[in-house]
């Protein structure tokens, strides 16, 4: 369906729902209660060995208008949040992140000796190769170079300039930002400067129950844990803003949603019971993982995608490919990422959720169900591609030629919090079971497989006095352990190494927050540490927040990483898609990997977001003026 038609249908739906609510407002008369809150903010970050990595200036206006209750309707209001940013890093540090970023690159070619390289475009040419006139050696980096050497693995050239400067590798509709959209992310065709805009109203039933409704562009938050998104998956997230380190409130991407709560209140058994229905009727949006050339590209996925899309569109040189050692020039339409299949707007592509929630004394709980689209991309191979040896176009087993898809998922989960009076500690638990998720899998000819996934977080909060530091105010200690179990995990030992799903079958990430307060809470230092157990990678963030007065707030901090960075995994160089040309030996089954390892492209799934950011230590300063 053409995008314009989708937009019209989606807009018509939003307008229709707005008209449906009109009677509510016709019954309400204007009250005096109008609120407007505004802040301007500068966030300036410096990255080790890079320099300026953020100079973001934000204007955010929040406004709300309440209306008098009328009849059975109460708490009627209209609220909006509008945000505009300008990130000057693309102008002030344009050699790293702007129009002058990147350079001419050399690609590793160990066939000529350890660490030897060739210029991009001068690799071993297939019969059907590429023309550097269509893909010149400029404005590029080598995939993964910020984190690791190629070290005998695969790598490719990745364009890094804004998409209006260099359109190579810009995937239509997905990670294709031009300079204006990089500088001011909210000024896009999804009107993100309207960050939130929604109507609220309560309809009071005669039995005392209340139907609370919020309709409009909004964030809907499920769950009880910090940092991790086990149940909090209704809105996609913009990781390009500051990786995983910003408050989720600032990086959730609001969607047009109808949220209705049937608030039953207290019953004979429960202190509070509530049933919530969510209908996300907005056109689908994925997480923003960051486009290669931006300062924040979580797990460097955006660079992998851009490099692969450029490879598909233009061809290019791939390090150490032929024979596992020779830099090889592929032609266009042979390997890479062809396109992103973003779900179009249709009723069947909208997303629905249900939550039953209650309080039973010291115990709070929720049961959650959500049918939604994965906000993380899944790359599926087995698309029509050209054989570089014969020129034939067809389906080739385990060929590293992909489309990006966003499969529909079903999530069932729940959460609990419990206050243990005996040890004065609050415990929080959140768990989910998701079906339909897809993972890269080098054992499969499609190079992916589905798996059910169980995720959970167990958290504990306790206030502890440390008298020699502060005998008046306790410190908050908040610890969490996040676990992920891929239930249909597949791995095998092959001739040259392990193959299968690169993600860990079981993994845990632990976080610890210690926060203290002085000067009437106006000075608040904190330590936040996160450790990825399997990746053996740790992130530590030390920060101090100083509320100068009601208007000014200053936050300064340092964010550094420890432990292991890049990790190697089967890179499918030995998948033998174009047998017999790519067979390692006569009996080598087509589409069957031998498990040759490299950092790229799949090692990132073992390193995780912390391991992949090992070279992104930063000093971060933020000044906010509110009025």
């Amino acid at each position: 369906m053409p995008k314009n038609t989708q937009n019209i249908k989606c807009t018509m739906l939003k307008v229709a729902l707005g008209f449906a609510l009109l009677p509510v407002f016709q019954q309400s008369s204007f009250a005096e209660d109008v609120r407007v809150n505004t802040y301007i903010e500068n966030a300036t970050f410096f990255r080790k060995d890079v320099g300026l990595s953020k100079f973001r200036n934000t204007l955010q206006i929040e406004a709300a208008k309440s209306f008098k209750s009328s009849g059975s309707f109460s708490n009627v209001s209209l609220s909006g949040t509008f945000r505009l940013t300008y990130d000057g890093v693309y102008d002030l540090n344009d050699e790293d992140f702007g129009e002058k970023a990147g350079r001419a690159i050399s690609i590793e070619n160990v066939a000529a000796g350890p660490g030897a390289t060739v210029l991009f475009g001068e690799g071993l040419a297939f019969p059907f190769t590429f023309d550097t006139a269509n893909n010149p050696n400029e404005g590029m980096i080598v995939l993964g170079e910020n984190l690791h050497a190629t070290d005998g693995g695969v790598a490719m050239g990745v364009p890094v300039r804004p998409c209006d400067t260099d359109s190579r590798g810009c995937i239509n509709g997905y990670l294709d930002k031009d300079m204006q959209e990089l500088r001011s992310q909210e000024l896009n065709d999804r009107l993100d400067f309207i960050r939130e805009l929604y109507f609220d109203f309560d309809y009071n039933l005669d039995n005392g129950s209340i139907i609370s409704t919020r309709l409009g562009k909004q964030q809907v938050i499920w769950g009880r844990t910090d940092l991790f998104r086990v149940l909090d998956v209704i809105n996609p997230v913009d990781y390009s803003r500051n990786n995983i380190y910003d408050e989720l409130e600032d990086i959730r991407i609001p969607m047009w949603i109808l949220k209705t709560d049937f608030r039953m209140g207290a019953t004979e058994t429960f202190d509070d019971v509530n049933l919530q229905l969510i209908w996300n009727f907005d056109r689908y949006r994925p997480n923003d993982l960051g486009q290669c050339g931006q300062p924040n590209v979580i797990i460097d996925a955006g660079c992998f995608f851009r490099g692969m899309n450029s490879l598909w569109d233009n061809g290019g040189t791939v390090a150490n490919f032929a024979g596992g050692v020779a830099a090889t020039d592929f032609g266009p339409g042979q390997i890479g990422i062809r396109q992103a299949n973003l779900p179009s707007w249709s009723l069947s592509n909208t997303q629905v959720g249900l939550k039953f929630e209650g309080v039973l004394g010291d115990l709070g709980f929720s049961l959650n169900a959500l049918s939604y689209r994965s906000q993380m991309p899944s790359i599926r191979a087995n698309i029509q591609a050209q054989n570089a040896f014969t020129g034939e176009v067809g389906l080739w087993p385990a060929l590293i030629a992909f489309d990006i898809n966003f499969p529909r998922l079903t999530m069932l989960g729940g959460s609990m919090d419990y206050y243990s009076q005996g040890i004065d500690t609050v415990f929080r638990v959140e768990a989910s079971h998701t079906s339909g998720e897809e993972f890269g899998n080098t054992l499969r000819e499609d190079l992916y497989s589905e798996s059910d996934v169980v995720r959970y977080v167990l958290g504990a909060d306790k206030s502890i006095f440390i008298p020699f530091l502060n005998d008046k105010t306790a410190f908050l200690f908040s610890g969490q352990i996040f676990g992920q179990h891929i239930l249909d995990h597949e791995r095998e030992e092959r001739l040259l190494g392990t193959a299968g799903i690169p993600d860990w079958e079981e993994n845990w990430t632990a976080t610890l927050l210690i926060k203290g307060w002085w000067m009437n809470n106006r000075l608040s230092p904190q330590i936040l540490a996160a450790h990825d157990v399997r990746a053996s990678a740790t992130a530590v963030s030390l920060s101090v927040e100083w509320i100068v007065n009601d208007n000014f707030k200053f936050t300064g901090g340092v964010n550094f990483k420890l432990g292991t960075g890049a990790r190697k995994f089967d890179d499918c160089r030995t998948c033998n898609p174009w047998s017999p040309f790519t067979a390692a030996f006569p009996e080598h089954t087509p589409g069957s990997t031998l498990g040759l390892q490299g950092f790229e492209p799949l090692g990132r799934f073992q390193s995780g977001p912390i391991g992949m950011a090992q070279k992104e230590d930063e000093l971060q300063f933020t000044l906010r003026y509110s009025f």
Partner: protein
Amino acid sequence: MKKLISGIKLSIAATFVTSALMTTSALAADEVIQQSFFPYAQSTPSFEGLAKGMVIDKSNVAQFKDVIDPAFYVFIEKGFTSIVVGDTTSLALHQSYIDASTKGYSKVTLGEKVGEISGWEAGRPFPAEPSNDDPRAGEKLAWNYKYGYNWGDSAAIYPFYWKYRDMDSAKVERTIKFNFHFLNFKGRVNQQPTPEITPNPSDLFRSIYVQVLAPDDVRNTQLLIHRAADDLKRDNSWLYLGFQRRVRRLATGQVTDAFLGSDLMIEDFEGYNGRISDMNWEYKATRYMLMPFFNHNELTLDTETHSDSDGYQVVAFSGQGGCFPNITWQLRKVYEVEASPVNDSHPLSKRVHFMDAQTFTIPRTISYDRKGTMWKTFTIGQSDPDHHLPANKGSGVSIDDAFSMIDVQANHCTTGQFKGQVDPELTPPSMFSVQHLRATGS
């Protein structure tokens, strides 16, 4: 004290003598109730040299040392503030609360442990005069406070301004604007339903809901406290943080932290906002002291902080650092009660409460740190409801109208300016649910 005793009118002295010769149980219920709720019915107390309209400042404060609590005495002595003396007036609580007290008289008994009570349904549980011979007299006074008619069955402070002030420079560091709402689930005597809101599955006694309106960095923070009727059970508390947009259950230990950076703990609200069983209570004395009771409409008010279509203005502050309310003080009958925390890790070693005998509000409290050094001093100014908002007239609620919590160690204070409204429409029971926090949050 000699001066005080000599100054009290003969009829009052005679009443005490009579009381001392009789056991409480021998008094007729009506007489006990009358004495408890109308202590100034026969006459009002006086003190040598004290007169309406006079100002007590550092030049004459020594003369009145016996009727001023030690913290406030030091403030006046240092010239930080002065006291304007008003008439002692009777602030009669709502008749339905008094009737409930009569109905429940002598039916209420303490259990074996501190915090255990039985037989109470509504009203003042222990209206009889405390006795130094009663080892649990302090605990009974604490129950009288807890089951008092503090804000009636429900009320709202709507809005409520807190200012964080540097006492040395007088700089206002922060101004927080709140709405506070109070609801009694049990012991209700006036607003329907009485005596209890049902269903009440967790057998709650009371709930407090707080919403922060400004400034921006804490706007939309909400706090909900559920207090069980069983005093041995800890509160359940939830906090909605605007920047997280979700509800967090609080460990109740956090009630001793500075609330939103103010000089108050959650436990300090209203004078004392914890469990009876969290403290060891000791009745020290019955005294006649100057207490912050006044008629709101007769004060010179703050014209800047708040304005609305009602024309209502909040109490003004002045004195050192702007930490002292511009109010008048009355000589009133007071019970001095010392509360020391059971938990050794509590940041306080004790609070000394000065409970108003007629209303059982706690207009003055002095808190001491773990080392036993004076740390904070809390003043809650009380207005007669008949001289406040028209809607409060006849409510029989002693209106909390201004507070000042001074950290004498840090030379810092938090002041509070109220628009207290006894209006059940502002405080529906549905407001006191966890889901309300989510529904209201944005």
